[in-house]
């Protein structure tokens, strides 16, 4: 990636985050990529109101590698959808890279997704009929980039994930790990502010999972902001910071050393 290497990726401290989150209504400074303030999301499930998020405050500084954990029903999918600009909160603010996303309309959200977010899904979500190259080009298509530049940048992104040899293969001709690496190339090709991964290893065996985690590790080291949603503690333990959700609120938000120690995991 083009960003310069840093000695040690700095983690935001709890105190810093509290200051940012408490300044309701104010646009956070540029170094804060993600700021949510009192985000609530409710669903009407046939007359019954389900409160998926009950006021979530998160602040993520640029270059952080954060895992969002929680059991099913904790609201982590809802939070991921909101962070990924696929959904908007009923209440509260969401600032992404200095833009107030929580009040945006459909097409503005589409633009933000295209520019600011790179998605990596559990089920890869590649277009089955398109080649790896065409899949990686897709975000650039919607960004309105010329076909020559698209091709060049997509090739670069695929080479960065060691798939330069397989650009003309379709997803069904690739292994699970390769598919996920195509998805990572696609997520990064438009140089997003955040890489947002939803259970990125959920459909992979443990060896391939390790391989994908190493890719994430490498990205985090080059300064890419990574947000990873998972329910597996040992996967979450790869991140520098772990946020645990329970019943629609944040239960804990701490460095991974604290998290792993609490769970008795070894790194």
């Amino acid at each position, binding site marked *: 990636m083009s960003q310069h290497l840093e000695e040690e990726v700095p983690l935001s401290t709890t105190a810093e985050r509290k200051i940012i989150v408490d300044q309701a209504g104010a646009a956070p400074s540029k170094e804060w990529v993600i700021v949510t303030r009192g985000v609530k999301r409710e669903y009407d499930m046939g007359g019954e109101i389900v409160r998926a998020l009950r006021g979530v405050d998160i602040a993520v500084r640029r270059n952080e590698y954060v895992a969002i954990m929680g059991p099913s029903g904790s609201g982590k999918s809802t939070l991921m959808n909101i962070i990924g600009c696929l959904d908007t909160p009923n209440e509260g603010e969401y600032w992404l890279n200095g833009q107030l996303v929580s009040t945006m309309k459909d097409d503005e959200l589409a633009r933000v*997704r*295209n520019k600011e977010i790179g998605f990596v899904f559990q089920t890869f*979500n590649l277009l089955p009929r398109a080649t790896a190259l065409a899949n990686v080009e*897709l975000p650039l298509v*919607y960004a309105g980039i010329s*076909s020559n530049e698209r091709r060049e940048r997509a090739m670069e992104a695929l080479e960065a994930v060691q798939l330069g040899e397989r650009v003309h293969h379709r997803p069904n001709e690739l292994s699970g790990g390769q598919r996920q690496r195509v998805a990572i190339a696609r997520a990064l090709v*438009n140089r997003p502010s955040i890489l947002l991964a939803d259970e990125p290893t959920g459909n992979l065996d443990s060896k391939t999972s390790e391989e994908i985690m190493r890719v994430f590790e490498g990205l985090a080291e080059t300064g890419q902001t990574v947000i990873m949603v998972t329910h597996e503690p040992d996967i979450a333990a790869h991140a520098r910071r772990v946020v645990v959700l329970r019943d629609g609120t944040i239960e804990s938000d701490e460095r991974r050393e604290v998290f792993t120690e609490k769970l008795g995991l070894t790194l």
Partner: protein
Amino acid sequence: MPFLEAVRLALHTIRVQKLKSFFTLLGVMIGVMFLIAVVSIVEGMSDYVENDFAAKIIGVNTFDVRRWPNFNPNEDDEDWRELLRRPRLYETEARLVRETLSADFKTAIVSENFIYANAPGVRPRMVQAIATEAAYFDIKKFNLTQGRAFAPQEVVSGSRVLVIGDEIAKYYFANLDPLGRELRIAGQPYTVIGVIEPQGSVFGFSLDRMAIAPYTSALGRALRPRGDIEYITVQGPTREVLMDGMEAVRAAMRGFRRLTPGRADNFALETSDAALSFFDGIRSKMVLFGTALPGIGLVVGALVIMNIMLVAVAERTREIGIRKALGARRKDIIRQFLIEAATLSVVGAAIGAALGVAMSQTIAALTPLPASVAPWSIVAALIVGAGVGIVAGLYPASRAARLDPIAALRQE
């Protein structure tokens, strides 16, 4: 989504599912096929009417003085009674017309009808019997392959001389020299003195079955037992002179018939324009019905395409979700599905156009109907095809664009 990629995707879908695509496109195909065929035939007919028919039947720079118009669309009972009340046309009026006009004009008295004619050893058959004057040959520009036309003296004397069409000559006098032979029309014998070169046919109706004799001969009385004449045909040197002459004839006729200024003409002056406008009337009806029926085919085609596109949207919900997650706006999704629907439909229209061209050529070859494929009709067919696809694709495309990306991504 780039335009070409969407087109390629649609073509790929057609290739992979040939049978399904065939049925999908059947409606559009049949609609366009008949549209092209009908337009070609109508175009062919009007080319024909404008270039051939009007000149052959009425003549260039010619008008007819008649009791009632020959080409008379939309007459009701009232009109019909008025026409029947009109006085007949007589030779004295032909003389009046002739005296009114300068020497630049040619005129001829004409009466015609189909009557049986017979010759020894041949089955009797209908011929187009025409009783006229010597100038008729000149006005009609008939060239003779054998013999001669009759002379003005023969008209004065009422000679039983006959000039016949090519088909008549071949039918009654096969392998014989027709000149000097006898042909009986309505029981009266006539001597053949000339044969006209082949004139071809109009809408399958042969122009070579003429048998022309002086109007003063027995044929005149056979055709008009009451002693009147059917019409006077007048040819002028140019169109302008002809129009002036026509107005002079109108004034003279009105004076002769003592029509006061408020009263309508009780005779008809008919130019080839009348024939053309008569055919314009027929043509507009043909275009209306000829396009309304294929139009139904296109509507059915549109519904089938809409249905197929709805299925495609349902099948590809996940793809739509992925595209939206990667930043596709509503209009991007709408565009993709509209291009796909339009491509499908244009392919159908192109096949239909090819079949339509083949069909009109076949019709032209097998029937007397003329057909000429207008290039614009093929372009129009493809545009109509694209239009049908876009209209049919609108609803499915907007449904696709309105899908919630979260729900779409969750779909298996």
